[in-house]
């Protein structure tokens, strides 16, 4: 099979699998998020935590719960990292430096999994298992919980209640994430991923050198890394490492896992608002953007005009030969389209425009399909903005799913939309103005600028992938990127929950022939257009001096 047809097969089979999973996974998520019954284990958890699982929260109560949970998570993880030398299975590693501990604690709590360290040489096994991996579950569940609260805002009327955060969190962890993580881990072990508590062993290479081969609980972390759109690898090489991603089919499975929840959540949304067509429309919006992006990265990587790429048939630099160029390009697109950030190739080595697409994917605001939960609430906020403009154009006070989009809703949606660009642009601007921060760039010129822009874009959008090249383990980047990740995660969540509250309180307007139909191709196309235009308008000046200057 030629590399190209292998690539096409890879993409086509992924699309088929995701389309097939859409309804069953979405329906399952719907049942998890709306079911009335609690399992015995869940009841036990609620009793231990001291939560009444049948009492719902207002949006502000929900928001306080999210904030409290996140604060405790960051604090716990920070302390964990700082005290790692005292812990069991620390492998003799020293405590993590304060700035790096802060960065890492925030990074894993916010579902970003930006890693300014090489995990296999910095973290002990217990920290990886009980600290980082726990957050891989929790942060993914928080995203889905917040999305569920927003959807309840659309689905409910004349109520102040948007759900119970603790119930959402526990159910998503226990009923969705854990089972898949356990079964998936077995699959990965079967494929050759390592799963042990060994400190590693020394191997002698053919050339006679000695190489340390670190072992650890890799497979158990690998599945939730992708399934929860986290992306923080056990090894520095992430999914390019054979112990994490042993074969071509695990590579396929990783891409599938990192997209499946985000692509299926719209189905749950449609079920919850009582109109499956609405969910399908959102999924189609995501799919159009995703397919466009996958095709673009592949095109730029395969059909590059450079001398070397033409000689070898594609831009193969930085690409893991086990997977090949198309599969790596697709992985790169998928990991940045979702807020995963795992990598199986080095984005920094991509062609200028090929590397610009992952960057642009994140700039979309992680909505195509985005992270677990965060993708759904992100695209719904963008749909709200689109509905506002489109609704005016059909001559009515704009309404989405019967809920009026008035001043309060527009304010919350606008602030949501403003947050990440503000963080990315101010962060990048500040870094480029500081000689200190500029010193971290591997390359100078537009490529170096792209590295910095990529770092802040990745952090603000809670992606966590790195362009590489940039030496991010400095106190400047650890501190600022940590702050950017935290604000980029929590501020939008607060705005989304506020939106949920204001929508839930409304009395829905019954649809009529004069109502904008938000499930029709016209609207789908318009949302796609609005997303692309807003992103282009926001980031074009910065992109012009980075990848565009390099690639044109």
């Amino acid at each position: 099979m030629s590399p190209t047809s292998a690539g096409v097969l890879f993409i086509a089979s992924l699309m088929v699998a995701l389309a097939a999973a859409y309804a069953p996974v979405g329906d399952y998520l719907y049942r998890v998020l709306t079911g009335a019954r609690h399992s015995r284990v869940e009841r036990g958890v609620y009793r231990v935590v001291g939560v009444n699982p049948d009492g719902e929260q207002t949006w502000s109560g929900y928001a306080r719960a999210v904030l409290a949970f996140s604060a405790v998570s960051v604090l716990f993880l920070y302390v964990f990292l700082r005290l790692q030398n005292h812990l069991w299975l620390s492998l003799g590693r020293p405590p993590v430096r304060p700035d790096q501990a802060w960065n890492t604690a925030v990074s894993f709590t916010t579902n970003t999994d930006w890693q300014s360290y090489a995990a296999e040489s910095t973290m002990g096994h217990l920290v990886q298992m009980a600290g980082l991996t726990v957050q891989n579950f929790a942060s993914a569940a928080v995203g889905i919980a917040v999305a569920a609260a927003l959807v309840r805002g659309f689905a409910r009327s004349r109520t102040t209640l948007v759900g119970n955060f603790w119930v959402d969190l526990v159910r998503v962890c226990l009923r969705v994430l854990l089972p898949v993580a356990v079964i998936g881990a077995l699959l990965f072990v079967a494929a050759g991923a390592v799963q042990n508590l060994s400190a590693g062993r020394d191997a002698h290479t053919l050339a006679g050198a000695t190489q340390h081969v670190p072992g650890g609980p890799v497979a158990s972390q690998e599945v939730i890394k992708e399934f929860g759109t986290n992306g923080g690898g056990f090894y520095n090489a992430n999914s390019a490492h054979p112990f994490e991603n042993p074969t071509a089919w695990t590579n396929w499975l990783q891409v599938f896992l990192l997209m499946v929840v985000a692509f299926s959540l719209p189905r749950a949304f449609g079920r919850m608002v009582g109109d499956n067509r609405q969910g399908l429309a959102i999924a189609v919006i995501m799919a159009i953007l995703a397919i466009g992006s996958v095709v673009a990265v592949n095109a730029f990587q395969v059909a590059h005009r450079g001398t070397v790429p033409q000689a070898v048939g594609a831009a193969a630099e930085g690409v893991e030969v086990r997977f090949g160029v198309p599969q790596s390009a697709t992985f790169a697109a998928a990991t940045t389209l979702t807020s995963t950030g795992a990598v199986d190739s080095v984005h920094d080595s991509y062609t200028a425009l090929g590397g610009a697409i992952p960057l642009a994917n994140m700039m979309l605001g992680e909505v195509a399909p985005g992270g677990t939960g965060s993708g759904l609430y992100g695209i719904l906020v963008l749909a709200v903005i689109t509905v506002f403009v489109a609704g005016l154009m059909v001559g009515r006070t704009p309404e989405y799913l019967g809920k009026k989009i008035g001043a309060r809703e527009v304010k919350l949606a606008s602030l949501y939309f403003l947050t990440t660009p503000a963080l990315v642009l101010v962060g990048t601007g500040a870094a480029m103005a500081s000689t200190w921060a500029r010193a971290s760039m591997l390359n100078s010129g537009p490529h170096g600028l792209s590295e910095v822009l990529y770092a802040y874009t990745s952090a603000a959008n809670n992606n966590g992938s790195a362009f590489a090249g940039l030496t991010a383990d400095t106190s400047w980047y650890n501190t600022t990127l940590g702050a950017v990740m935290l604000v980029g995660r929590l501020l939008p969540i607060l705005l989304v929950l506020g939106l949920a509250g204001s929508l839930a309180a409304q009395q829905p307007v019954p649809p009529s022939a004069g109502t904008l139909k938000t499930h029709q191709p016209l609207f789908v196309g318009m949302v796609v257009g609005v997303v692309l235009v807003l992103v282009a308008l926001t980031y074009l000046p910065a992109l012009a001096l980075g990848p565009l200057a390099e690639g044109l």
Partner: protein
Amino acid sequence: MSTMAPKVPPVAQLPPPRGPDRVRGGLLDPRQLIRSLPDALRKLNPATLRRKPVMFIVEIGSVFTTVLAMLHPTVFAWLTTGWLWLTVVFANLAEAVAEGRGKAQAETLRRANRATVARRLRGWRPGDGGSGDGRNGDGRGDEEAVPAQLLRPGDIVVVEAGDVIPGDGDVVEGIASVDESAITGESAPVIRESGGDRSAVTGGTKVLSDRIVVRITQKPGESFIDRMIALVEGANRQKTPNEIALNILLAALSIIFLLAVATLQPLAIYSKSVQAFASDTEALTRHGVSGIVLVSLLVCLIPTTIGALLSAIGIAGMDRLIQRNVLATSGRAVEAAGDVNTLLLDKTGTVTLGNRQANEFTPVDDVDEKVLADAAQLSSLADQTPEGRSIVVYAKQRYGLRERQIHCATWVPFRAATRMSGVDLDEDGQVRRIRKGAAGAVLKWVRDNGGHTSDHVATVVDGISASGGTPLVVAEARQDRPARALGVIDLKDVVKTGMRERFDAMRRMGIRTVMITGDNPLTARAIAAEAGVDDFLAEAKPEDKMALIKREQEGGKLVAMTGDGTNDAPALAQADVGVAMNTGTSAAKEAGNMVDLDSDPTKLIEIVEIGKQLLITRGALTTFSIANDIAKYFAIIPAMFVAVYPGLAALDIMRLHSPTSAILSAVIFNALIIVALIPLALRGVRYTPSSAAALLRRNLLVYGLGGIVAPFIGIKLIDLIIQLIPGI
């Protein structure tokens, strides 16, 4: 016993029904632009401009570039600065032109509001001066002259032919024809009379004949005309909910672009420093992008087009209503009109021509047709309602019965309680009583008077009802004989022409029309079917109307209705859009949030269209404004950085003359497009009632796609011209 025919006012002429013509606005006179220029310059005052955040940013930028241009004067700097200032002026011009149209109208109204002297009556009691001549001693004795400004609510004034009515109020006695052209522009006089639903008079209008006693209901300075002046001048114009929401979105976009432009500077400085070979340009030196270019980029990106035209759109929308003789108390009401889901329309006068006409006499139970016709005519001779007169006319046309003077007759007027009218005749000492009215009422009367009713009557009545007619049963009772039903008069409602098309259009817009009628359900159904309304409320009492409105609103729907009577007032207040007829009572006018000076209930349909048009215009220009940015990027970004990264020339797809000409062209286009769109803002986007999908498709195509393409062409054309300027 009286033989005097009751004095019945002539029926006010309703304006002819308008055809289904579409909302149009006045054309823009270029002279208006010049006339409004001083106002536009006055609006440069930052205190005024602060209310429009987008334009305020442009003004601050303009001040900044002016300083820069003075420090480093170049042709490019001064030209750019000049055009940036023009951008602000053009925005102000749009608002000034929109306001200017109202000012002329306010001027006319002020003339009507001149100080008048009122003849206040003291100690007036009902009946004092209402005998028609009004010259009895009591009424005149306590009269005093006071300036109209000193009138207080509750004061009683008398107004005679030739006098100007000193203030808003209700006629408590008398009847007069009044010239209301000062407010309605309609020269035909209208009738105002005490009691009933045509009792409201407006200060500043002129009594043409007769004499009326008016109870003042408004404080001076708060009169209808005062409010109208404030309204057309837009003195205390409040932003509407959608306008506020849109302003928030525009502010958010402006902030994003502000950030994008501000954070570009360190990136540019870095890029310039690593490409040391690149020569300095007017746009970019090693100190970064020049302030003028940064401001130009910012002004081009922030949504200036919609930001400049937003307030003009709102003012013009209100103005379009006023041009149609509709006064809205707030812009909020106009916006709500666009959102209306349910339209309650009174059958009479709105759906039908208002006067039902006799169409057929159907005798029952072997009664001779002539006998029925005779009785019908007799009972209607004194009946001055349009229906009553149509019976007399029909009897004459069909049966040759002439009108006659009847003596020794007592007219029994129609009363809501009895639901019938008629006449008691003294025929050679024998009393003959004739009644006509609603079937149930008359048949009960027959039974009460010893008669019995046959099924035949019911069959005929049902037949007429089913066909949409109004059955009036005629019965008589002669002395010593049981009463009997003679037959049934078929009164036919005439549906106005063109109504079906309008209701079809409403349906396409997603608006449900509900016809309100006092008719029985059968009649109502037939007329509803003939007129093409979606639903009807039969045998409606005022409280039924209220209940219907509340029921609709509970389902989240917005309801619009028209009304004129005092008993409509609660419903008018409850409805989201309540249009009171100018002929109505002041209670109705107070309760509604709009007043139709033409008193044309079908106007509601136009009001809905104007409301929609207002929102569409805002949405369309917002889309256009944002879509424009794409082309501006293609002009400015390569112009800024092509010296550093020659590859970016690929983005210069318009092949503009030079970097400076590219930036200047974008700025000029940005300013000129505002002027070019002023007429559209004032007139409103073309609106044809159609489904949401069709509207969106069309507007996206015209203003979205058009907004992307137009600036590419415009900027290129401007560039072709300004490249001739030396130094650009």
